[in-house]
Structures are given as C-alpha cells and as structure tokens.
C-alpha cells in the first residue's frame, strides 16, 4: 500500500525525461547505472588501447548497437517474450549443433557461425535463450519445482552447456549453466538440494581431476601456483596481479600504468581490462566500478521483485544475477582468485558480442518491469 502511494506521488512529479523513459519502457536508474559503467569502460579503453581513438570509436559503436537492441527488447511485450522463448531455445540449440558439427568435420575449434553478412556465436543466443526457456517452462508449474520438472530443467540447461564447452568455450558454457541454474534457484530450489548439489560437485571435482588431460591439470596447477610457470601459463595471472597490486589505493594515474602501457599485461583491452583499472585508478577506482555494478545488480533485482508473474520474475532475477556472475568471475580471475576462463568484464571489456547480449537482456528486464501490471 505504501508503495502505491509513493508511486502516486512520483507520478505527479514526472519530469519530461521521466515521461520519455516511461514511454520507451526504460528504467531511469538502471539506465544511468549502465551508462556510467559503459562510460567508465570507454575511458579505460582509451588508456588500455594505448590512446587509440579508433578503438574507442569501435567500442562506442558496439555500445550503440547494444543500446539500440536494448531499446528494441524493451518494446517487446512480456507475453511475446514468453511465447518465443521455447522457439528461441530450439533455434539456438540447432545452431549450436551445426556449429559443433562444422567444427568436428573441419577438425578445428568452432564458435562462430558465418552467415555471410554477419558472424555470430550461437552460444551467445543461448545465454538468453536458456534462462528464457527455463522461466517459460516454470511459468505454468507450481513452485518450488518438483523432481520431474527439475530433471527436465537439468536437461534443458546441461545440453547447451555441454555443446558450448566442447567447442571449446568453457567461459560461455559456465555462463549458460549459471544463467539456467539461477532461474532454478530463484524458482525456489530447496536448500537441501542446493547443499546436495554442492557436495556432489565437490566430489565431481575431486574425481574429475583423475579424468583431466595433463594440459588441463597444468592449467589448474598454474592457477594454484602461477609462479611455477612464470613465462608460460602463469604469465597472465602474474602480470595482472602485479598491475593491480602496484596500483595501490589511488592508482598510478590515467595513462600512467606501466604494466598496461608497456604491454606487460596481456589482453589488456579485453579480458584483463580490470587490471588496467586497478593499476591506473587503484583500489578507489576499482571500488567505484564494483559499486556501479552492485548498484545495477541491486536495482535490477529490485525491479524483479516488483514483477507479478513467474516468467518475468524468474527471467529478471536470472538476468540481474548473471550480470554479477560476469563481474565476479572476471575480476576474480584477473586478481588471481579464480582460474583463467574467458569471461569479459561486462560493458567494460572491449570487443566480443557479450555486451550486446547483456544489453538485450536488460532491455527485456525493463520491458518486463514496465509491463508488470499487465496480466500475463
């Protein structure tokens, strides 16, 4: 009741901007949060690319494409989104199989599907399609889900995850898995099952060690002790922790990070851009970025709790949380907390299509929120 009154008050004081946002089905605070992160990202890109304005221009173009897609997605009706979910999933699944087959026949790693005018990764579709399909599947069913539902969901999530991991693309595969799992978690998966899964995965990790190839074990060992192979596999982690550590509290200053500017830091515009931030802007700069991310995640979760139907809530909860999973995996990897997997820092890492996917997801979230009053 109180919320209704606040809304009422707010409605009376709508500014022109708010009216515009409302008309576009956009959420102001969320948009501002995303925009600030994107701006931060472009500033850092200028430094990490070595003062390359062209890179900044390309990054901005990509952002604009993502923003446009977000705007489009925000206009889609929740019912439409729900109805296309299974079809999108099937489409993504078929494309994934095709990509894997092409890769298998061509005996080479394959992630891309070349349509002539554009190349894209079907796995990128699955980042959205899996949580959408899971939310769709749970929409009509009572929550918390029963065993049969859970088994069906497990199949829906694990198949595309496996198809992506064998590409091989461990990072995207994990993100697809997480996106689906988050839907299930938000759907009310019982706590004891979560605990059981935790124990099971720990056991699987222990047993899996004996199934790993030597080079895969090496990768794990490198993560545990980067100094064991300082110029080989450990190089990335060592250089990025040096960059972050040497940044200190206040950082070395814009364009003054020696690790990044002198090219000691590998992949400094893409996966390791967080190290550039840590080096040049220090702990304060990193905290600012983490704070912005937290704001976006919390705002998105807040929007999700206001929604009325299951599909909207579950999808929104997943989309909001997965955003932070990106951040945690990337920052954890760059700062040496987690092994190196290819997960970009959302809206800050240069290149890749994940920024577009993420923004499309936020567009859907805004649509779901803007249309929350509509009966599903």
């Amino acid at each position: 009741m109180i919320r209704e009154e606040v809304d009422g008050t707010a409605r009376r004081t709508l500014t022109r901007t708010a009216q515009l946002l409302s008309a576009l089905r956009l959420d102001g605070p969320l948009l501002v949060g995303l925009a600030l992160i994107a701006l931060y990202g472009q500033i850092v890109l200028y430094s990490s690319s070595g003062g390359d304005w062209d890179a900044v221009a390309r990054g901005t173009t990509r952002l604009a494409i993502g923003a446009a897609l977000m705007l489009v997605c925000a206009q889609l009706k929740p019912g439409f989104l729900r109805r296309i979910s299974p079809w999108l999933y099937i489409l993504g699944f078929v494309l994934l199989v095709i990509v894997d087959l092409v890769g298998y026949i061509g005996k080479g790693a394959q992630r891309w599907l070349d349509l002539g005018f554009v190349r894209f990764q079907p796995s990128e579709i699955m980042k959205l399609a899996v949580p959408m399909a899971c939310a769709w599947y749970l929409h009509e069913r009572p929550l918390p889900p029963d065993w049969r539902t859970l088994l069906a969901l497990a199949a829906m999530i694990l198949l595309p995850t496996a198809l992506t991991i064998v590409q091989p693309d461990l990072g995207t595969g994990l993100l697809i898995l997480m996106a689906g799992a988050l839907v299930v978690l938000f759907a009310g998966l019982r706590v004891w099952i979560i605990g059981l899964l935790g124990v099971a995965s720990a056991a699987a990790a222990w047993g899996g060690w004996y199934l790993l190839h030597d080079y895969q074990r090496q990768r794990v060992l490198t993560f545990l002790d980067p100094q064991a192979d300082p110029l080989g596999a450990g190089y990335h982690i060592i250089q990025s922790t040096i960059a972050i550590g040497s940044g200190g509290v206040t950082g070395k200053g814009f364009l003054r990070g020696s690790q990044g500017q002198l090219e000691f830091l590998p992949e400094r515009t893409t996966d390791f851009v967080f190290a550039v931030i840590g080096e040049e802007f220090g702990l304060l700069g990193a905290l600012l970025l983490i704070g912005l991310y937290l704001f976006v995640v919390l705002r998105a979760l807040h929007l999700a709790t206001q929604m009325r139907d299951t599909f909207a809530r579950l999808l929104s909860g997943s989309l909001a949380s997965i955003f932070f999973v990106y951040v945690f995996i990337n920052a954890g990897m760059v700062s040496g907390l987690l092994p190196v997997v290819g997960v970009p820092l959302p809206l800050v890492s240069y290149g890749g299509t994940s920024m577009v996917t993420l923004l499309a997801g936020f567009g859907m979230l805004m649509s779901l929120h803007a249309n929350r009053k509509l009966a599903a």
Partner: protein
Amino acid sequence: MGARGRIKDLWREQRLFEQRSIAAVVVVCLLAAVLVARLGWLQVKKHDEYTALAQGNRVRTEPLPAARGAIYDRKGVILAENRPAYQLELVREQVPDLEATLRGLVRIGLLEEESLDAVRRTVRSRRPFDGVPIRLRLDEEDMARFALHRFDFPGVDIRTRLARRYPEGETAVHALGYVGTISEADLERIDREDYAGTSTIGKTGVEYAFEDVLRGKNGAREIMVNAQGRSVERLGSLQTALRNRPGRPGADLFLTLDLEVQRVAEQLVRGQRAAVVALDPRNGDVITLVSTPGFDPNGFARGLTRAEFAALNESIDRPLFNRALRGTYPPGSTIKPVVALAGLEYGVTTPDTAIACQGWFSLPGSSHRFRDWRRSGHGRVSMEQAVAQSCDVYFYDLARDLGVQRLHDFLARFGLGAPTGIDIGGERSGILPSPEWKKGAFKRASQQVWFPGETVIFGIGQGYMTSTPLQLAHMTAVLAMRGENYRPRLVRALRDPATQTVTSIPPAPLPSATVADASHWDEAIGSMVAVMQGGTASRSALGAPYSIAGKTGTAQVFTVAQNARYDESTISERLRDHAWFIAFAPVEDPRIAVAVLVENGRSGSGTAAPIARAVMDAYLLRQFPPPPGEDGAVAVPPAVVGGGE
C-alpha cells in the same frame, strides 16, 4: 513428493521469490566483499611488493660508459684521446636469427667471413640485452650501405661511441700501448660490470698498466622498456621515476715522455730493429722509450682485420715486440764501467793498476784464448784506458780476480738481472748469471757446473748475461747519480677530470747502489768520460757543449770459432753483432741517461752512439735534426754506416 496436482499459489511464490532475491543480494554482497578483500590484499597489504615487481618489469639499467682518460706527454701534448666513432651493434635478444643476420651482414660487406667466429663468440659472451659491437669504425660508405639494408637486420643498429684515437700514430706506441677489443682471455680476469657498454680494454703499455685509472667508473641509466624489451622513450609520463647514476670519467695521465725527443729518437732508428730508452736520472722519468719497428695503435682501437693482425704478428721484424722492455741482449762492453767499479769496491784493483794487453787472455792450464776485439791488443792499459778503449783483456783479468759471485752481487746493485719496476710492467729481467742461477737454469748436472771461463766472459757482458735496453738505461742513470736509484716511470701525474686537480706521483726511490769509497764513482765516471774524449765514441762527442760520459758495446749474436775471425762481409745481416751505446750528460749535473740498442747494428760507436748524441742534443739543447724527407726515410741503413771498434 506430492507435488502432483498442486496448483500455483501466487502469493506464496511471490514470497518465495522475495526470499530468494534477498538471498541473492546477500550472496552478491558477500562475493563483492571477497573481491574487495582481495583487492585490498593486493593493493594495500602487498602494494610495495608489487610496486617493486612492476618497476623491475619496466626498468632496465643501461650502462653509461665512462669516458676514458686522455694521455698527454710531459708538456701537455695529447697522445691519446677519445673521438666519436660509428660502430655496428647487435642486441642478441632482438635478433630473430643470429646466424642469418651475421651471414646477411657478410653478404653486404659489413663483416668479414673470417671474423664470424670471433663475432659469434663475443655476442654469446655478453648479456642478451646488451648491445655488442660487431664492427667498429664504420666509414661513410659502410653507413650508407647499412642504412639501405637496415630493415633486414632487426636488432642491429649503428651507434655512436667514443673511440680511442692516437693522434701521433706510431709515435711512442711501445710506451703508450694501445686499447683493443676485449678478448675472451681478458673476460676471464675482468669484472664484466666494469666493461658494460664498452668494447675495448688497454692491452699494453700505459693503456694496460693504468687501465683502472684511465677507465673510470661506469654510470648507469635506467631506461624504460616494454614487454618486448625495447626501450620506450615516447611515454614521457612514465619516466619520472627513472634514476640516473652518473659515472666517473677516467683520470687523465701526464707522461714523463718528451714527445719532441721521442720523435727525434724514432726518426733516427726508423727502418731498423732498435730500442732507445732515455731516463732522467734524477727521478727515473722516462724521457724517451722507443722500440722499432712500431705499429699504428689506431688500428687496434679500430679493430684489425685478421689479415692486418697476421701481417703485424708474423712480420720477421716483430713490430709488436717491445724491444725496450722485453728484448734481452748480452749487454757487452756497456757494463765495463760497473765491473771496473766492482774491482775498486772489492779492492781487487786500483785506478792506476795497469795490465798488458797483447790481444788475448787465457786461464792458467788452458789453451783457450779469450780474444780482445782488437787482435793486436791495446798494450799497457790502466782502468781508464781499458774502459775508454774497451779493452777486453783488462776485464777478462779483472773478472777472474773478482770471481763470479762478487761480479754478480755488484752488478745486481745496479738493477741488472731484475725488473726495474717501471710503472707499465711487461718488462723482462734478463739474466745476471751466477753458479746458483746456473743450477736452476739447467737440468743436466754436467751443465749446472760454473766454469771459470764463464766468469771471464761475464766480465765483458757476454756469455749468459742478458739485459734489456731499459735495464741498461737504468744502470746508466744509477751510475750518473753515483748510486742514487729511482724506479723508472712513464706516468708522472694524474688529473681528476671532474675537479681538474692534478695529482703528481712522487718519484719512487730505490735502494741506492752504495760503494765504500765515494771517490770510486769519479774513477768509473771518469773512464766513461774518457770514452767520449779520445775513446771509442769520441766522434760522437764532437762539438757537444756539455760533457758526456758514455760506453759503447757490441753484443754477439753468433759465436766466432776459436780459430776464425769475425768477418761481417761473410755473415748474414741478422747474425751481425748488436750495437749498444749508453751515455749520460751533463756529467757534472746529469739530466739524461740514454741506452741505445740497434739489432745487428754491428758497431756501438758507429751506429748507436750518434743516436744517443742526437737524443741528448734534442733533450738538453732543444736542437732537433731536420725533419725527415718526403718519403719519411732519413735513417741510413745500418750496413752502410762505417767505422767499428
């Protein structure tokens, strides 16, 4: 489970979702806290450690080679200096394929095929990120040729460095020495740190002996490098923290050499195998140190080709051989004044004791005749006459009376048989024989016995005895100073390049050669004056406005058979006697002591003495012979010089 048939409870699901959202917020905040904790660990707790690592990553220390000290003669004329020179340098770690690069450089004519092995070794012996000179002194044409192909040779570049230059060329090369490329043998005894950024090292002479003083101390410059190890200058914003440690340039040296006198001496012996050493007897200063033939040290500083080095090293005249310090020759008659002094010292003879010289000497119970250089003999000679006419029989007799041990001990007082201790090192001791020496020098017992006949020829400086020209000049100086003895030296002062303060090196006195009766000096020196006045070298004293004491000598290269005669016309040039002359002047106040040796010069009086006279004129009177003619050849070939003892 009982879920079957359940219907959706919207209110309950709403609450469930809210609970899960709260859980999600908690988990997100926990994970964010983990991240922040990790960042705090890296950026606060471990900040210093990582700062050091980042600094170590980007900063590389580059040596700033210290400028080598210059060398001046006693009047401040420059003898060795540094000039910018262009050289080809290679940084191993920046060269993708060392072999291909070296072959490519051979193909465009910048390296020689034969030098490849040496270059390869040098490159491998240095640190991979240091620039290694692989070709010194490029001329304009070389540089143009390289510029054309520069992009084919990553990691190879032209660098400007200070290179040693000897403006006087060959002059005084055996005193100055030279710098040359650091060899593998050098690398074993030097600290590589000291030579980072330089490729040359003093090899001989002053350049070698005063290497540590001349070299100075390298500075260091921190340069910023990127991950590929390339120096990056453009990122000015990162350079503020770079440190520079300035080096200390090497000290300048002032030599005791008198360049003008040196030139005169060299001019006089040009074309001959000869050595001239002139000392200031009052302090041991080396006024002149000549060994001919010489060579141009600039060649070594530039880097000789294999062929050039072979030509120098294999020449029969041995231009690289420092005859003044390392040439050991029988001193011959030049030691007679000292032997005479020994006779007086030990009371074996008196100045007035005369003997009859009939042209030969023999020991009792032996038919072996020790011949005098004058076959007819000198008749009755006293000590002064014996020295003046260089009567051998007198000294055969005196040597027998003295015995080998006393002869040895007394000559040793004049520094014979031991290094003089000249400050550039590299000298040889020669041999001052004694029965004890003979035991050590020979392996077979039958050869270790000292024979009386060996004492006899020892008296005229023949037999086993050998000396260097430097030793004889030193002996002459001690005679001139009546026993006062100074260590010969070439460097008299150092100048600190920073403060320009000149530090003089005081002369180094050695234990004096003492005699019981000081008047015996007058007898010995008087006999040497007689050599110049009516004696064997009187022609060389003609017209001298100062008094000279001297002594001629010849050193046998070849032993004439008992019943044969030394006939130079039948003996090949290189078996002819070596010519010696020693002298000092003015007698009353000695300022110069000279020893001249001309290999196969035959006659001390005819060949060596005029050279000594000209050196003394130049030094004492500043009178210089006319400069050499167009072709530079002024000296008369030794075979044409007439006269003889």
